[in-house]
Each structure stands twice: as structure tokens, then as C-alpha cells.
């Protein structure tokens, strides 16, 4: 049967099919989100196709909502705030790093973190540097790798990401071998995600991990996709493991301190 005769026999069906195709073509955001989810999370591909049909003509946000409701354990729909653009620019210009004596605190992995850290280390001169990661609650994964590359001795430091389906991918940080003597690395319960991955990498390289409690144990890599102007669909990509499960770093375990040392001891003494 030719298409034209099919149309004659089922004009409404053909019209509906044409309408559906038109709707799909007219929603590039939904098409893009489908493609991204299929690529990033193949395990959701079937569900996405199903939700796409259900959300035809209703936009990418409809699709994102459906996915987030379907799999709340490994996906999430999160809102994005839109302060005045000058405020955004101001926030983005805030330092991610602060220095006090020989201790460098890395609070986050903002856009200026690499430049700030390089500048501080250049100014610090020779001698050991202590790192304070107690307030670091993670952030951009790629920038964390750039920070680690500055701090790590020459060499290759692998991290594995195990997907929900059990597939393993490898990220490698290439230590730049900078002439830097790393002293104590202080962690705490607020040290989260990329912050504790950085701590685990430094531990793998032989740094002394200090503190009185392990890190938060949230070692998940996530992708942030665009649902619409105000919402992001976050997809868990997998669990990260650094080195050979060094320092207790493993799924849900976080990084364990080796001892109370230096700065941690003095802080505890101060609090008493």
C-alpha cells in the first residue's frame, strides 16, 4: 500500500502522525534533552522515549519532570536562581581560595579557583603548604581535576567511575610535578563530593590526611542538563573510586583521616 492510499484509508491517522512529527520537529529542546539522556544514561533510554511521547507538545520540562519522578534515586530536577546579572558576575568573581599563614583553604571550585590557587602558591614561596578542605562541599568536576593537577606530584592519578549498570570509566589527573611540598590536608564532615575526591587524590599521593571525622561520603559524579531556563535535570553518572580504595575512600565511605595533626590539634585545643 502506498502512502497516498494509506492516507485515503486512514486520513485521521495520517493527519495525527503528521501532527506528531510536526510537534516533535517544533520542540528542539525536548529532542536535545532526549539525545543527552540517552547518551549519558543509556539505562533510561526506553523510559525517555516513552515519556517523550507522553510529553509531545509540552516541552522539555515536562520530560524532565517525568524522568525525575520516575527515578528519584538517580535523577533530580533542581531550580536555578537568576539574580541580577551584575550579582551573578559579582558572585562569579568571588575567590574560591583563601590563605592564612601557610594554610590554604579551598572553599569551592568556582571559575577563578585555578588562577587563585596558582597565584597564592606563587606568592607563598618555598616550604610546606597545609590545605584546609573542611568547608569544601564540591562543585565542578573538571575544575576539581585542574586543582588536583596543580597540587599533585608528577604522575598519573586515576579515578574510576562505576555506572549504575556496572560499567567502568576512568578519569586521569596528570600531576604537574610542581615544586610544592604539601603538608597536612585537613578534612571534616562537611568535606563533600569533589572536595573529598580531591582529598582522596592527595592521600593517594602520600599527603597526610588530618581531622577527627571522615568526609561526607558523597562520591557521585553527576551531569547537569538543561530542562528549561529555570530548571536543570541532574543525572547521576556513577560512583567514583580513587586509587585502590585508599584511606577508606569507597562507595559511601568517604575519606577517613589518618590522625589528628597540626592544625586540627590546635583548633581542637582552641575550642576547649
Amino acid at each position, binding site marked *: 500500500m502506498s502512502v497516498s492510499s494509506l492516507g485515503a484509508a486512514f486520513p485521521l491517522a495520517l493527519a495525527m502522525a503528521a501532527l506528531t512529527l510536526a510537534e516533535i520537529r*517544533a520542540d*528542539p*529542546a525536548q529532542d*536535545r534533552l532526549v539525545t*543527552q539522556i540517552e547518551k*549519558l544514561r543509556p539505562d533510561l533510554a526506553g523510559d525517555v522515549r516513552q515519556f517523550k511521547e507522553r510529553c509531545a507538545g509540552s*516541552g522539555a520540562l515536562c520530560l524532565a519532570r517525568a524522568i525525575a519522578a520516575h527515578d528519584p534515586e538517580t535523577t*533530580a530536577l*533542581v*531550580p*536555578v*536562581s*537568576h539574580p*541580577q*546579572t551584575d550579582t551573578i558576575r559579582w*558572585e*562569579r*568573581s568571588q575567590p574560591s581560595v583563601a590563605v592564612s599563614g601557610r594554610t590554604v583553604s579551598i572553599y569551592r*571550585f*568556582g*571559575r*577563578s579557583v*585555578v*588562577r587563585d590557587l596558582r597565584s597564592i602558591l606563587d606568592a607563598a614561596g618555598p616550604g610546606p603548604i597545609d590545605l584546609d578542605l573542611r568547608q569544601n*562541599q*564540591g*562543585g*565542578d*568536576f*573538571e575544575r*576539581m581535576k585542574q586543582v588536583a593537577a596543580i597540587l599533585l606530584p608528577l604522575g598519573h592519578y586515576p579515578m574510576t567511575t562505576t555506572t549504575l549498570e556496572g560499567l567502568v570509566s576512568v578519569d586521569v589527573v596528570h600531576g604537574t610535578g610542581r615544586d610544592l611540598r604539601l603538608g597536612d590536608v585537613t578534612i571534616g564532615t562537611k568535606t*563533600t*563530593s*569533589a572536595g573529598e*575526591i580531591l582529598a582522596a587524590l592527595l592521600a593517594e599521593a602520600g599527603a597526610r590526611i588530618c581531622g577527627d571525622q571522615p568526609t*561526607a561520603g*558523597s*562520591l*557521585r*559524579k*553527576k*551531569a*547537569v*542538563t*538543561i530542562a*528549561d*531556563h*529555570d530548571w*536543570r535535570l*541532574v543525572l547521576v*553518572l556513577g560512583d*567514583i573510586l580513587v586509587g585502590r580504595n585508599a584511606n577508606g575512600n569507597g562507595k559511601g565511605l568517604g575519606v577517613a583521616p589518618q590522625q589528628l595533626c597540626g592544625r586540627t590539634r590546635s583548633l581542637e585545643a582552641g575550642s576547649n
Partner: protein
Amino acid sequence: MSFRNQAKNSLACASLLTGMALPAQALEDLGHYVFVPNRNSADIAVIDARTNTVATRIPVGLVPHQVAVSAGTMKMIASNTGDNTVSIVDLRTLDTVETLTLDHEPEHIELAPDGTIAAVGNIGAGTLSFVSLVENRELSRVDGLYEPHNMTFSPDGSLVYVGNLGADLVSVVDVASATVINEIPVGKPQTVATASPESAEFQGIINVTATPDGSLGFAAFGEGDAMAVLDLRTQETISTLATGNLPWRAYPTADGKFMIVPNNGDETVSIISVATLEEVARLKGAADMTGVNTGWFETTAFVISRGEQKLVVFDLDAMERVGEIDLPGVPETGVTTPDGTMLYVALSSSNQVAVIDVRRRALVTLIDNVGNDPWGAHMVGALNYCH
């Protein structure tokens, strides 16, 4: 016709069409004036480039971010981010003929090639407004954008390419239907390791910078140390060029030979050959670079450093960094005169405009009392741009 003249409509933030007979008016020859939006005094300063004095100041709405001028309609439009409006001014009388309320935070403006329509990006709302400068009204509003930043019209005016600051995407908008008809991926989705992904900083696309014929678009991806080259006819990425860390956006030379990209992460500047699509030089820049201007037969480039209050000077023949020009205030953006001889740079902290002799590569004068917080400088027929 030089690219500088050709590009005035397709690339300029403020542009005027040539060949129009100007009636008797307050501004005798618009080609001699520099338009400067003053964010804190809510007006547009008009500087006479022949005398380097302020000829007049035109009141507009709150926090004017950008101005665009259309000779075809003899209108000027200013985006007022502070009160969500645009002001339309009749340049024959210098009167505001209409104040239109758009969406949240109208910021960047781009004129269609015929100058009758202005595309205004409402960055806070994720929408784009098409405003008729003939009818003085908002024609349509496009949703489905993600912090829309700078915009670029296709040469025939049928499409607008939108750089989304909040996404790793370039949106393609069909002007006639006022809808997003395509999204071109640039870079890749952000990956994070954090309990609060919404707080992770992100910078998508600042601008799509087109070649003179409109066939290629250059879109730096703020998170990827790379710049995509887009075939604007097929709307596909045909190449990805490595740049320095955290590239801002591409600025074209007027002859169309190079794209100049400040990399604010490692404070370098990548210079890309349009012919070979290769990085031909990476030179030392400075902190917080907000713009690039070229001139004097495209032998010289000035990189504006807001972070260090200076201009960094490149010789484009030798592809070398040849000097710096210290400035008395914080520079924002600038404009080179269409003949490539002079450069005007807005200094926001000192309420001045610096005038640079491009050939001599030297500061020649400062124009005082321009207004409060001058944010940019725009001229007819020039390669204008915004932050």
C-alpha cells in the same frame, strides 16, 4: 566595501544604515558621534568625536545596558535592565517616543540588517523580544532560551543565533514565527560532584561571532577551553578549536582574517586564523578581559583589561604583545572609529571616556563628566560589541 562597513548591521550592537539623507536635526551627522550608556545616571551620552566633547545626554530608563541606533528609522533604542523596559528615542528630535515594558532584565540588543527590528534578550527571563522600530512596539516574544546573552542575525535577517549564558547551547530563532527552531550543542554538559548542583558556577556561550559572509560562526564555550566553529548554513559544529582556559568570546578583525579570543582563566589571548581555522598565536593578556578592539588597517589590537585597568596592545603583523596603556579608571568596553584611527573606551569608575590614538598606540585625551557609570561606547558603522 570593507568588512568593518559590511559588518555594521550583522555584528554591531549599535548600528546605523548608510545612504540615508538626514533631515535637519539635533545631531547633524550621526557618523561623528559616540553613544555611551550611563548605567547610574540613566541616560545616553552623545560624544562629538570631532571635538571629543559631550554634545548631549538623552534620558532613558534605569540602568541602561546597551544602545543601538537605526538610521533607517532614525531611532535609537536603549535597554534598561533596572526597570525591564526599552526606550525608543527619535533622533530627529531627541525625544523618547515610546517606553516599552519587556520581560525580566532586557540587556543585549541586536538590530536586524534592515534596521527596522531590534532583538532584545531578556536575560533574567530566558526570553527574547522582537521590537519594531517602525511601529514602536513589541512584535513578539520568544521563550525557550537560557539566559540569552548576545545575538547575531543571519545576513538575510530571517534567523537569530543566540548565545545562551546559562547553557552549552546556541539557540536558532526563526524571526517570522518567533520560535526556537534548533539548538546547536557547543561543548558538553557540565559534570559536577556536589550535593547542590544548582550552586555550581557555569558559563555557557557569550556570543556567536559570524564571519563577514555569515557562513561561519565562532562560539567559545566558557567551560571547555575550546571554541566551536559553526556552519551557520547547516547549523552544525564543523570544528572545535583549543583555546586557553575559560575563553570569553571571539572578536573579529575588521578584515575578517582573525578571531581574537580572551581567555580569562589563564589570562592569555588566542588568535585564530579564519582561513585555516587554527590558533596562530597565544599571547599574554591580563586579568578580567572584557573586550578587544582593532584598527589602523588591522595592524593593531587592544585588549581591554578590567581587572588591571589597562589596555594590552598586540601587533597583528608580528603577532606580538608590544605594550600596555594604563587607564585612570575601570575600562568596560570600547569602540574603534570606522576609519580605524581612534578608539573610545568607557571608564566606569571615573565617569570618563578614554580616547586612544590607534596608530600611535597612545592615550591622547580623557573626556570627563560623561555621566555616571559609563558602560560601553558605540558608533555608527563600527564593529560594536557589548560585555
